[in-house]
Each structure stands twice: as C-alpha cells, then as structure tokens.
C-alpha cells in the first residue's frame, strides 16, 4: 500500500505547519438556487471510499464537524452536493473558492453498501444528499450487473440540477419528478415507486433525502416485503462511534448511525425519533445562521441570501 503525503498540514493543531497545501477546493458549481457542487482534494479518503459511506469536513479552525454524502471519489478528489442551509454550508458557499483549503476531511465513514447482483435496483432521492448517493450507488450497482432504476424528485423546474449532475447516465431507467409538475412527472418518488411495484419491477430499493418521505417509503414497501435501505441523517460530532450523538433506535436497540449506518433497513427504524432528533439544536443553529447572514450582508452592503 502506498500512503499519500500527509493531509495533516495542520498536523499539530496548527494550520499549514508544513507549508503543504491540502484539502484544496478544485471545483465549485451551482446545482440549483439552493444546492451546490464542491470538489476537494482528499486522496486518503477518495482512495478508500465506497458507495454508502460519507465524510466529515471542517471548514476552518472554529468550524463544526459536518457530515456529507459523496457524489463521487476520483483522482484523489471528493465531490459533494451541498445544500445552503445554515451557518457552515452558507459560509462554505460564500467565503470559499476554488484554490482555498478546508481545514479537515475525515473518511470514509460508516459502512459501505453491499454491492452485488440484486436484479432490479431502484435508487430514489428527493433532496441533496440523496441525489449525490443516487448517482454514486447506481454507478456501482450497474457495474455489478444490476438493472438500475433512478428516480430523482425536485421542488420545481428551477431546482432541477444540470443534466450532467443527474443520475441519468448510470440508470437503465430514469424518472424525474417535480412537486408542481413543471418538469417531468408531477409528484414525488413515492408515486413512481408505487407504479414500479405494481409492475413487479423492484428487487431492492435504496433511498436518500427528506426523512419524512423516507419514513413514508418505509410504510409503502413494508406490506410487500421489499428490502428498503435508506440513509439516516442524524446530528453527528465525531462520526467514529465515540459520542453517541447520532444514536437511533433500530429494532429496539441503540445503534450509532455513523458507525453502524448511515444506511439502514427502513423497516426497522424508529422514524419518529429520527426525524425529531434532527431538530435538537434548532434554536442555536438559527442564531448562528442569522449572525452569519448579518455579517455577510454587511460585507456586501446588500442582502446576499
């Protein structure tokens, strides 16, 4: 095994000790008015990453550890889809450009999806992390000989990603839906899946995105006994199984989403708690976001976001 030059420029608690620049941002593009694509050099992560796994990055010394799904890992680089949501994701969008560096990226974290020949594999997504995983998972599933069906749901036409970032290219069968019907099929992926199940076209479903829709999906497939594997997004700190922040009840037992997941059998997840625990820090996050936006708007002398 070849171990790359250390990414730990801030090795001993200090940034750029060795003068080597790592975790450099190599690409950044808008995907929609609210989502963006970012690509970062992280050879140690890219080399080991497999679909289903995620990363945790920190933007700067005072930053938070932020878990992110991976869209692709190639040539020593990690590509991610990010939603402008709170302080960190907004700050990354507005303050960091190609050539800048992130302070830390750890990964891959979590367990990889078992890639094998299942037959007909569906991946359904209706939000940013799901769209990243949709592409990544089906690419691997197609290479493993599966018939791949991708469904991607967006709010409306304006929010649909540019074609090259959709999962079309890795899908044998592709469906795009919008809530208002302004592009593709009207509705969300649940409607499409109903149709697929009726036509007996589904051997296994993977899905990622809004936790609410994922919970509905679990109820939709449960009577049919169709294996349904979904990403469980929980608030994380370390991502290594050290803190229990990401704990969920799974089959009545405590599981850590970062270590034992993040993909779980949707039929065994206690969805109510999963959805609720995502809001644990809402008030504080709002404060941080408002404080940041105020600074941002002051800097630009106008309302930027």
């Amino acid at each position: 095994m070849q171990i790359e030059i250390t990414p730990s420029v801030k090795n001993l608690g200090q940034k750029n000790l060795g003068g080597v620049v790592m975790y450099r941002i190599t690409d950044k593009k808008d995907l929609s008015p609210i989502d963006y694509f970012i690509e970062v050099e992280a050879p140690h992560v890219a080399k080991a990453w497999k679909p289903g796994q995620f990363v945790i990055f920190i933007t700067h010394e005072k930053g938070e550890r932020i878990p992110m799904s991976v869209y692709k890992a190639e040539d020593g680089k990690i590509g991610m889809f990010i939603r402008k949501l709170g302080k960190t994701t907004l700050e990354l969008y507005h303050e960091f450009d190609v050539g800048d560096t992130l302070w830390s990226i750890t990964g891959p974290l979590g367990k990889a999806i078992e890639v094998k020949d299942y037959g007909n594999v569906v991946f359904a997504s209706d939000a940013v992390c799901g769209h990243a995983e949709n592409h990544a998972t089906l690419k691997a599933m197609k290479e493993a000989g599966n018939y791949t069906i991708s469904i991607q749901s967006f709010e409306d036409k304006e929010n649909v990603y540019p074609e090259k970032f959709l999962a079309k290219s890795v899908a044998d069968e592709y469906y795009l839906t919008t809530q208002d019907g302004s592009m593709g099929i009207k509705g969300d992926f649940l409607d499409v899946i109903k149709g697929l199940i009726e036509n007996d076209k589904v051997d296994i479903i993977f899905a990622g995105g809004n936790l609410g829709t994922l919970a509905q999906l679990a109820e939709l497939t449960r009577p049919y006994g169709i294996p349904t594997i979904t990403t469980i997004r929980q608030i994380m700190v370390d991502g290594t199984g050290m803190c229990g922040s990401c704990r969920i009840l799974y089959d009545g037992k405590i599981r850590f989403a970062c270590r034992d997941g993040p993909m779980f059998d949707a039929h065994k997840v206690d969805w109510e708690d999963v959805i609720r625990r995502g809001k644990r820090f809402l008030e504080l996050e709002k404060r941080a976001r408002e404080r940041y936006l105020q600074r941002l708007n002051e800097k630009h002398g106008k309302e930027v976001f």
Partner: protein
Amino acid sequence: MAKIIKERIPTPERSVDERVKSFAEVNLGYTFELAQKEAARCIQCPYDFAPCIKGCPVHINIPAFISKIKEGDIKEALRIIWNDNTLPAITGRVCPQEDQCEGACVVGKVGTAVNIGKLERFVADYAREQGIDKELLEEELKKIEPKDGKIAIVGSGPAGLTAAGELAKMGYKVTIFEALHLPGGVLIYGIPEFRLPKEILKVELEKLKKLGVEVKTDYLVGRTVTLEELCEEYDAVFIGTGAGTPKLLNLPGILLDRIYSANEFLTRVNLMKAYQFPEYDTPIGVGKKTIVIGAGNTAMDAARSALRLGSDVTIAYRRGKEDMTARIEEIHHAEEEGVKFEFFLNPVEFIGNENHKVKAVKFEKMKPLEEKDKRGKRKIVGTGEYVTLEADTVIIAIGLEPNKIITESKGLKVNPNGTLVVDETLMTSIPGVFAGGDAIRGEATVILAMGDGKRAAESIHRYIESKKGA
C-alpha cells in the same frame, strides 16, 4: 533526622467565584519557592525502600527528583522524571496520586503525603517556561541513531504518544494515525481546559514533531486504511485506540433531547469549543438544571463543565460517597464549585415534556449490602422505592468501552468486554501488532496508558531486532 513537617504546602488556586465563570485552569501550581518548601517535606527514603516509587505505575525515582528540586537543579529533576515518564506536565495534573505515589508516601502516615503530583507538575511547568525542556530534548536528539524500521501507531492518546516518542528516540521512523482532526485522545477531547490546558498538550506534540514523528490526523484506521494495509506497509503496528465508545442506558426516554453521553457533551465543549458558541460553530444546549449520572472522572468533568455553562448541577450515583472513582481533588473542586451529590440512586426512566425535551429522571433508591464485589466495592440492591428528580439536561457518564471500528479488524482477538487480547509483551493475536492503554484495559488511567506505550515500544524494538536476526 529533621522533624517531619506534617502539613503540605498548599498550591495556589483560582477563587471559586472566578472558576465557575471560566474554563481557565483551577490549580495554579507551585512557584519555585513553594515547590522547594514542599520538596523539603520529603524525608528521602532510600531507593530500594521508597514506597512512593513502588506506588507509581511507571516507577519514577521520586526521592531523586525531589532532592534536585531542593537543590534548585530543575534540569536534573526533569532528566530523572523523563527516564520513566515523558509527559510529567500531564500526569502531574491528572494522575490519581492518592491511590498511587502519594497514597504510599510514608509522610502520609503521620500527616499529609508529600505533594508528589504537584511537584512533578512544577518541574515540567518550570522547565517549559524556562526552556529547560528544550535543552534536554536537544541533548536527547543528539543521541538518536537512526534505525531501519517503520512503525505505525494507531490513536494519539497518551498510549500512542508515549509509544511514538519512545520509538522515535530509539531511532525508528514513526507515523501516528489519528481519527480525529487533532491529536491527543482523551487529553484533547475529554479532559477540560480547566484541568489540563490544551497549550500543555500542544508543547508535548511539538516535542514529538522534533523527534521526527509524523502525525496523520483525519485517518480512521479500519475505514481510511485497514489494519492489514498498515501491516503490509510498516514493520510493526501499535494500537492505542482507547476506550472511546460511551455506554448508554437503554432506558425509556433515552432518545429525548438534551440527554447527552458525557463524551458527546465533553467533545462538543472541549474539542469543538462549544463553550465559545457562536464564535465557534458547534452548539451545545444546556438548561438550568443538569443531572449527571455516574461518579468517575468523566462525570466530574461533565458536571463542572455544565456548571461553567450556567447550569445548576447534581451528580446522581447508584453507590455511596466512598465508592466514587474520580480523583479526590476533582470531587473536592466539584463540591467547592457547588455541584450537588445524590447517592444510592439508580436511573430507571427519563421523562420528557411535550417537546420531547427531558424534564425529569426517575430513579430507584438503592441500598448497600455488607458483601463486596470483585472490585472491593459494597454490592447494592434496589429498595423498590422511587424518586423523581427534575432536570432539563442529563449527562450520562456510566462508562466507556473500546471502539469497535479497529477491534473488528481481521485476525484481531477480542475479549468478551471488547478489549484486545495481548500477551505479556503486549503483542496482539496478529504478529507484529501490539496494543496498550484503554484498548486493552478498558477505562483506566493516563499513566497506565503511558506505561503500556513505553513497554510496547520496547517489545516492538525486540520484535524488529529478532526479525532481522532471523
């Protein structure tokens, strides 16, 4: 012989009023003059007899270094300590001295034991402030003869850091792999600033860097690289991954908001500096009334941190006062700062409000029996009586177990409690892979982890030599 001075010279401490509002270090340590006065209390037991040396897990020549303090030769004092312990600024602050060196001191039989921990800390602090440690390090650097052999260390807690330092001094090329973004293990993410300022750890890490040790942070072994891959690339591997996984109580209500494991709480506060939110991005929610469950060092640290974040804090423990496992100094500081204690209470349920935030904890009252358990503590039984205490924040500090990510590696034998199986040389079931610290002991202490790191370094050296001979 001179008359024994029965009472120890007190170390200056920050006032309670100041402490409860700040994360600054509580104990300020001895000045040069005070250290010399305290050193004079040691009656200089002969080396073969000195009970303090036997009480110290790494057998520092305590009377020798204390006598150098008396003479005012701090450099020699440090040299003597370094023979057995390269992180005295840390152990001087966190060792459970009352059970170890000081617990055995003969002066303690007639008065209070010599304050060995604080003297050790003084030597380290004074040497650092005066640049004496750098001089000594330069001398050591000159003595290093580079050897063939590359060693990987997994985890950068006290076990990993010590193993790395010892192996680097022997001349090996050492690389540390650490999962988190900063090295230090519990020393950086667990033990708070008010007990162990991070600046001290930083200086120690810089020393390692001078010794040529490379630290790769952001590397989770078992995910970023596998143990197998490390074995191919390196001549030997040391696993010092600690016992970082919190035990959680699988009780009704465990998923309620504002119930934290001590690790989540302390990591947010210490490593991520949530106490400086929103200047730092990581949030922490602490209410007005916090209950901490447990009574070890972790519980004390969590309690005193919550107190500093403005909460009223009660520690609830299922056993009695004398069974608490935390260092005496920490219990004492916690009491001084206003942490309350409730004994013989065992949690059975967490009760939430309509917003799914915890609002109370239901406990069963326990009572002690005469019979003792394996660890010599009185056994306890439930009484069938219950009490409910109000709390809007709960921190669970009932223990930790080894992290599974590395212990699930192919070929590694694991004990039923999750610790790694090692032989008397600290070698695991995989030849060339050694382990020490909490990864083999479960929750233990900094000094035991360091002792293991040192022993493993010697074993690794012998292992590599024997392979060369073969």
